[in-house]
């Protein structure tokens, strides 16, 4: 049954492909090589292909630099705290 249905579908597809010539054409295949319209599409496609990488790269870059800045900030805070601890003594504690 399955083979019979498959055969019918394949026959229909083959007949359609054979008889309906315009269906072969790609909907956006127009203009020849060097045509300005094609160049326009190519420029746009290349730009849109590159953009996600640029955007994601910028986000990753922002995260990286912020992380490094946070690390430096933390190191500074810890150094300041260590200074305070070194200055601490029993008399200053009031206990």
């Amino acid at each position, binding site marked *: 049954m399955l083979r019979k249905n498959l055969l019918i579908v394949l026959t229909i597809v083959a007949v359609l492909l054979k008889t309906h010539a315009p269906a072969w054409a790609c909907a956006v295949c127009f203009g020849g090589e060097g045509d*300005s*319209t*094609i*160049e*326009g*599409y*190519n*420029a*746009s*496609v290349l*730009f*849109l292909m590159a*953009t*996600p990488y*640029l*955007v*994601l790269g*910028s*986000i990753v870059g*922002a*995260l990286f630099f*912020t*992380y490094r*800045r*946070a690390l430096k*900030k*933390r190191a500074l805070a810890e150094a300041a705290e260590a200074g305070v601890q070194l200055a601490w003594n029993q008399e200053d*504690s009031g*206990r």
Partner: protein
Amino acid sequence: MAKDSTARKLPETPLIEAVRRRAFGGGNPPVRPNMPIGSNAWLGVLMFLGAEAMFFAGLIGAFLVFRVGSAVWPPPFQPRLPLGVTGVNTIILLASAVTVRLALGRTQRGDTSRSVFWLSTTALLGALFLLIQGYEWLQLIHFGLTVSSSVYGGLFYTIIGFHALHVFGALLWLAVVWVKTRRGGFTKQSHVGLQVCAMYWIFVVALWPVLYGLVYLY
């Protein structure tokens, strides 16, 4: 792992508690929590700006199809765009990015009054940019460049119009931040609202030279 669980199960005898009190002044020794590298608002706005960049990339992509695909640009019988006035307008908008950064810097130093001054300057520069652009649009419409006059007009008003809409939105946000700063809502330690607003403003400003170069100069 096994060591940790054993350590946690140690009985709290009075002797241990007494030693701890003597050594640390009572209670458990202080534990420093991991400091976050940025706020959630900052991360959210960063993602939002990524989406905004993709939106404008779509508009630029559409522009490139027609611009690169046209042998003659601008199309015949269409008015030319005013380069000089828009160039001055570009400088005005770029200056506003400097002033908003100064406002953020002043808040980070705890100088709220100077921050309010720089925020006011930013808002004025942004409003001036929009006014000049509005005047420019009126002139262009008067000369026959409308949304429906050609692909050129349609692309111009869509791209530049969406940018102007973003500047207007950023201006409204800046007004809210200005009011909050004036009321002392941002301090040296806590100013994430101002920080994300400045981020958005700088994004909108940084976008403009790209659009100016593409739509006006290319």
